[in-house]
């Protein structure tokens, strides 16, 4: 495609002669043009060594029967790893868990972040303090946060069950039962990322012309109506950005569910909260099956790509529909 269009573009200029030559001369004449390649070279080297090479190697390994312990014995098995994966109940379990944990962590997270950003956008006393405070969870180490939440959600001695007991509600098995465990894991994710997203929204809100708010206030619009009719439309590109980033993040959830089961990669005794990231880790580093883990990695990559494209298409469809 690109090749064909390039030649199609080049053809008329080659025929007319002069403009093309002028363009070429000017391109070659810029003194710093080739030095520029040297400046960007380090990026490409790092990118090649740490992104492209592992990426291709993973694809290669995914077509082999490889164990970590005997890495140099690789047997070509074609797409057998992928076939194993798609007929494997553990994969589909992890796929569903990744989706549900992603939804119950991302949606409340972004809605809350939007609300918090809206509040922080008003002139209020100690605004800088609140803006810094909201970022504190993000600065906390994942391990520390998970350990604290593990204590809170402990089924026998945890604060959450203690509070439930205090108000005569039945206590919940936050580790063993599927949905409570997923909610608990999502809580950790939400807690960590809400402030981060709030700051991004806040930055987006600052770019909205304040005179719009003043005009709306003069017209007697409530703060809620200002939020709905000025803030949200003005933030649409920012919101799309956070949705895409959160989707990618959600598809890769790993640390929280890992630490939530004491560093075991099984995602609970029945795999209640085993995500795709965790499954991949378990296959490669616990079960020793690097080939299968690589196939999972590539499948995850495709899933993330599809999810991001779906987000973008949905956003474009919304815009087109509204323009009509």
């Amino acid at each position, binding site marked *: 495609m690109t090749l064909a269009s390039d030649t199609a573009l080049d053809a008329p200029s080659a025929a007319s002669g002069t403009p093309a030559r002028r363009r070429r001369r000017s391109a070659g004449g810029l003194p710093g043009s080739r030095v520029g390649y040297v400046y960007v070279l380090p990026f490409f080297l790092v990118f090649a060594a740490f992104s492209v090479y592992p990426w291709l190697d993973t694809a290669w390994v995914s077509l082999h029967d490889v164990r970590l312990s005997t890495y140099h014995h690789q047997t070509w098995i074609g797409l057998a790893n992928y076939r194993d994966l798609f007929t494997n109940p553990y994969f589909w379990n992890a796929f569903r868990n990744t989706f549900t944990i992603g939804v119950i962590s991302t949606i409340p997270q972004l809605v809350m972040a939007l609300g918090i950003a809206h509040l922080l956008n008003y002139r209020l006393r100690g605004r800088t303090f609140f803006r810094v405070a909201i970022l504190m969870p993000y600065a906390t180490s994942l391990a520390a946060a998970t350990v604290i939440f593990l204590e809170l959600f402990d089924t026998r001695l945890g604060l959450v069950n203690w509070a439930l007991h205090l108000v005569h509600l039945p206590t919940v098995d936050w580790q063993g039962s599927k949905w409570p465990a997923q909610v608990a894991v999502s809580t950790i994710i939400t807690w960590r990322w809400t402030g981060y997203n709030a700051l991004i929204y806040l930055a987006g809100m600052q770019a909205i012309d304040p005179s719009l708010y003043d005009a709306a206030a003069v017209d007697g619009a409530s703060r809620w109506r200002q939020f709905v009719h000025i803030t949200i439309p003005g933030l649409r590109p920012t919101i799309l950005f956070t949705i895409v980033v959160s989707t990618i993040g959600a598809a890769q959830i790993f640390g929280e569910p890992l630490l939530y089961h004491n560093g075991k990669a099984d995602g609970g005794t029945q795999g209640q909260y085993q995500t795709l990231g965790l499954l991949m880790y378990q296959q490669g580093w616990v079960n*020793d099956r690097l080939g299968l883990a690589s196939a999972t990695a590539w499948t995850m990559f495709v899933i993330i790509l599809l999810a991001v494209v779906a987000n973008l298409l949905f956003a474009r469809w919304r815009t087109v529909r509204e323009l009509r």
Partner: protein
Amino acid sequence: MRLKSSGSRAGMSLLGVLTVASLAISGCGSSSSTAANGGAGTGPCGTTADTTLTVGLFGTMGFKENGLWDAYHQVCPNITIKEDDVEQSADYWTRLKTRLASGSGLDDVQGIEIGFVADVVQNHADQFVNWNSVPNAAAIKSEFFPFKWQLASTTDGAKTVGLGTDTGPEAICYRRDLLKKAGMPSDPKTLASAWSTWNGFIDFGKQYEASATKQSGSHFVDSAASIFSTAVYQGKNAYDDDQGQPDVANSDGVKAAWGYATTAAQAKITAGLEQFSPTWNKAFSNGAFAALACPTWMMGYIQGQAGDSYAGKWEVAPVLPGGATNWGGSWLGVPTASKNKAAAIALVEWLSAKKQQVTMWTSPNQGGHFPSNSEAAADPAVSGATSAYFSNAPVGKIFGDIASQMKIPPIGLYDTQIQQALTTQLTNVETKGTSPDQAFQDALSAIKQVTG
């Protein structure tokens, strides 16, 4: 044309830089010393030059805690030892495997745990110094328990990848005060006869649970896993057949152990805790359970978790239901890629010699590292040792007797993962009421994920 040629030149130089970079990346691993495997080196320390040896260990292997590094520095002042520690042995093994695969980043001495010794023997024997061809080690071979030497050797016995450190003969550790409070017998003699079989142990547990005076919220044993992972190695086979291939469904050890463990779980005599989880760790001091399967190293773990205020409340029963067996233990190997091979060999030989193994068991800070050197185990200082923390129990005699009767079934590549899959499912039987049959099927399908 100019553009095109300059473009290709840029491409060439890019390619050149990439080649240099890739050479630099791959070049690290290729250097290797050619000193002969088993070379005697220079003197008792292996070298006379000032040398720093790195020792890769996991958990608490106790050398530093028992002052052995300092002691070695007295013997060999030119040798400095640097520990490279990983808390969890599973994480340590992942790291070691990765380094073995790439051939770089290996320490001069690497600890090898029983959970992955089979993998090292079957897949990496060539990457470790063969102790059969090291003059001193070959000479002291007869000092080790035969099973200890055998587990670290290839089936033909030609290659041995490590020298033994500790072993894990098992007994039962229990809270004397909790048994007393429940009105149960708590003297070791009575318990030795009551707990001689698993059925007797489980019946005792039922009486404990039925006691009106037992501490509220307390159960008899910590977990069904405690029973399972002990009983499984009492069979003729554990997770593997006689050739060392995984065969869980047809193993007599698995069948019997699964029966005992699920009976205990369904009789509700277990606290339903996952071993090595934070809640389990806390339970050592809050009285959530009264007894657990106790390999020697578990004594150190209990002291670490329960703390000094529980000294004298714990005791060791001179018995393991169902007969003597082993849980855990390690070896020390020297990678052939080590740059200080002779010095590393000298250190490992010194550490596994009788005198040091006696020190490991008898020093006041000892964490329950029972010798794998049988001459050390026979030493009166070892057999006569008592533990103040465990109510002055004659631990030397208890564990020495058990070690002398110990039997070990074949161990395979995936014993650790297989045991993990089975004990995870036991937790479901204990805490979620999953039927034992369903749980066993779930475990088998998880095991299938490992064995492929």
